[in-house]
């Protein structure tokens, strides 16, 4: 299994962007503030992070593209992760698993959003996502996604918090 593609629509600084990935070692580089960490935030967003702090947003609504310098702020955003599943690591009989998360500003209160989850186009839920991903040991809280600053956080956390990392794996 590997991550084949990330598709972003109006997520943070992205308008409409697909990023294909190959197996092996891929590097991403660019100036400060250009949007590199936003790609890892997009991945965490789909993996089902429920903490907006983890993806550097005050509220989930802050993840929706604000229009940039010349455009209009948007009402919704969505991100899809395409996982290559030829080896059936995830027990679904498909060569590709497409996990999509969409958030839309709630009509009654624009600060709040409603979250929608899809697996290969069919309506799903956060718990189904987490269940499918657990077969591949992929999770928003594990250490397979090391965000900018995590190394420093490990250094400065208390010894009890550090033991807590082992508790979670046990």
């Amino acid at each position: 299994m590997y991550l084949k593609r990330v598709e972003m629509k109006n997520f943070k600084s992205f308008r409409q962007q697909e990023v294909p990935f190959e197996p092996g070692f891929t590097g991403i580089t660019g100036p400060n503030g250009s949007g590199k960490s936003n790609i890892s935030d997009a991945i965490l967003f789909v993996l089902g992070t429920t903490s907006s702090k983890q993806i550097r947003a005050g509220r989930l609504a802050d993840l929706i593209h604000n229009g940039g310098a010349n455009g209009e702020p948007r009402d919704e955003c969505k991100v899809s992760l395409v996982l290559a599943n030829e080896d059936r690591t995830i027990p679904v009989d498909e060569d590709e698993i497409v996990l999509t998360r969409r958030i839309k500003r709630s009509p009654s209160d624009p600060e709040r959003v409603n979250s929608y989850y899809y697996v290969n186009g069919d309506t799903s839920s956060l718990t189904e996502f987490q269940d499918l991903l657990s077969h591949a040991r992929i999770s928003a809280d594990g250490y397979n996604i090391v965000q900018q600053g995590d190394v420093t956080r490990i250094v400065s956390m208390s010894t009890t918090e550090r033991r807590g990392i082992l508790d979670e794996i046990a």
Partner: protein
Amino acid sequence: KKQALMKVFDEVNENFQAIFEKLSGGGSARLKLENEVDPFEGGLILESQPRGKSVHRLEALSGGEKSLTALSFIFAIQQYAPSPFYVLDEVDMFLDGVNSELVANMVREQADRAQFIMVSLRKVTLKLADHVYGVTMRDGITQVLGTVDVDEIAHEELKEA
């Protein structure tokens, strides 16, 4: 419950020692529980001894030595519970050229077994990647450029070593 934790502790500790030795060119490191009898009463200490120095707790090390120790711990956890893909965002930021290259080499080796996506500003790291994507922002919108040649990227964009 204690048994489960001790099993994880022993295996991660073994990984941690082997990985730190490799990343520090011959240093040694280990995990220590503050309370061996009842681990849930105490915390977890990272101890490392860079090559040619006496043992230090994490706090007494230099910025680069601390981050190499913490990074070894992260890799040790990843090895315990392997995943099909990993994302590493500027984990080489505190390291000098020599240590960055050691980390990049380790990622290169691991990339035969799992997919690694690494955000970095260091040329010494990007040189070892199979593909490199350039990212820029124009009018507040991020553009991802296809594969770029690391040697082409102008000096001022990348940390050469």
